[in-house]
């Protein structure tokens, strides 16, 4: 079982890397979703698969039953899912804003902020470029 889940983690990671390397920003966003999913599966797997009983101490008992599942990875994954949900929601809003503002979802068109800036007149003739103030 562990092998199957580990393989699934690898496949999901591979898909996400393929998507993240794309130029299309929506695909990149989907790639992030898959990447965090892969991370969540990895955490879940690292808590060991197997016991399935709910990790609740029975009334009167002093400790967990022997076949209780490990609750910690579940708590970690739950936290990571909630955080991932927030990040993805923000990313989508940002991409929508980017589409409205910049008119593109192609990573190759995002060159504005990497443009070399004005050199002083002594070094290079100043270009009559307007600043985006």
């Amino acid at each position, binding site marked *: 079982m562990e092998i199957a889940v580990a393989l699934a983690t690898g496949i999901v990671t591979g898909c996400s890397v393929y998507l993240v390397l794309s130029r299309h*920003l929506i695909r990149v966003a989907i790639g992030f979703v898959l990447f*965090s999913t892969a991370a969540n599966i990895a955490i879940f*797997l690292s808590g060991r698969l197997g016991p399935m009983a709910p990790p609740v101490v029975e009334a009167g008992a002093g400790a967990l039953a022997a076949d209780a599942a490990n609750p910690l*990875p579940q708590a970690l994954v739950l*936290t990571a899912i909630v955080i991932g949900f927030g990040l993805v929601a923000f990313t989508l809003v940002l991409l929508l804003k*980017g589409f409205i503002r910049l008119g593109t979802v192609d990573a190759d068109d995002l060159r504005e902020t990497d443009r*070399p800036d004005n050199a002083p*007149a002594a070094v290079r003739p100043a270009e009559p470029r307007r600043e985006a103030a």
Partner: protein
Amino acid sequence: MQPLLASPLLIPLATAAMTALLWSRPVAQRVASVAGAAALSIATILLLLEVAGGPPLVGRMGNWPAPFGIVLVVDTFSAIMLAIAGLKALAVAVYILGSGRASRDRRGLHPLFHGLLFGVCGAFATGDLFNLYVWFEVMLIASFGLLVLDGTRDQVEGGIKYVALNLIGTSFFLIAVGLLYGLTGTLNLADLARTVPTVGNQGAVAAIGLLILVAFGAKAAVFPLFSWLPAAYHTASMPVAAIFAALLTKVGVYAIIRVFTLVFGYDTGFFGPMLTVVAMATMVTGVLGAAAHYDVRRILSFHIISQIGYMLVGVALMTPLALAGSILYIVHHIVVKANLFLIAGAIKREGGSFALGRLGGLWAAKPLLGLMFLIPALSLAGLPPLSGFWGKLAVIRAGLEAEAWLLAGVALIVGLLTLFSMVKIWNEAFWKPQPNPHPVIPLGRMARFGTYAPIAVLCVLTMTIGLWTEPFAALSVAAAEGLLDHDAYIAAVLGPVQAATLTETTP
């Protein structure tokens, strides 16, 4: 004691909540923001006085016992970082008063600003690796919002790059956390310090260490993971850029120092040379990038990267002197760097531009601003008797003592190149005549106070660290000793019983 320990988290959280509640009242938001930042800086200084030199202060959240629940651990190093973060928060909160853009207040500048501080303080105070991940995310979400606050084309574009690269970094961290948990069954830093050296599969430990180094390195903007920083920082508004420059990358540096001394510190043979190379490459690429640019904001952004290299020297060499030098350097850098960004904002407000080609004549027009630029600029370059000199001196001397000749040499040369960049800004913006004279709009009284008061206070602080170094150096040495004294940390978190069994089981 316990309320004081929780206060660095509670105060920014309460302030963020209060400013969010006052959503439609910008003036009230500004008042609440400055009050919250002042309270934070007072609380963190009290905490530093409480902790300095002594054993770490530990808070078990919800009274859950140590390796199971989340712990807050504040040792001298954490307390120093918290105090300096509180100070920066206050400086930037006052600086925001000087910016007339009320539209930013309506878009949530203050809640996001204090949300960012909440994440930063949490990251400095936590003693749990997964909790550190959560604080990183709190910080990240807030910084996303702050970066694209004005919604300009530049900001949205820089924001997309920033978000994309940082999401990858945190995913790496999450995967590393999962693997480390699978290997050791714990995520409490003290417990990890105890168990990681005893793990049989040291190859897996090294791989996880590398994953964590990539994740924190992306946060700290080290070579070759820094590309998000120059793509995004120069698009942010100046108060935001100042707080980013002061705190965001430093959280990454803090995390590297904390985890690679406490958890992976036993394996200096593997991580030491790697961190040395990373530190050198970071210094050199940052300073060369700065030399190539002619926009004040971009020059300063690249200098952040260059300075990160100096901060890594401590953890690369792992000697008490090197760590103390790094800590002193971080303190100096946070004070000076944020001040330079605030000054860049003042240059924009007074001179009308960030581009060096369009600036000029500021020394004649605003001699006070020129003087206040020179203090942090020369300090950044490491000229005596300013604060940067002592930080660089300690780092380079530690390099010489550890016989890392190349590292020490690179640190010296990079200092020289830093001076070149700073002189370039001076020559272009302050010294040369104004190329295209235009009527200057004088600032109002509030704007003048908000702009110059924080800059002046930070300048005085720079001078103080430079001229009266003794207490700061002593504090850094105490923090470095605390970082290397793993047993004290473990005993404080897990209790003396488990620390005793540790000395029995590990040779």
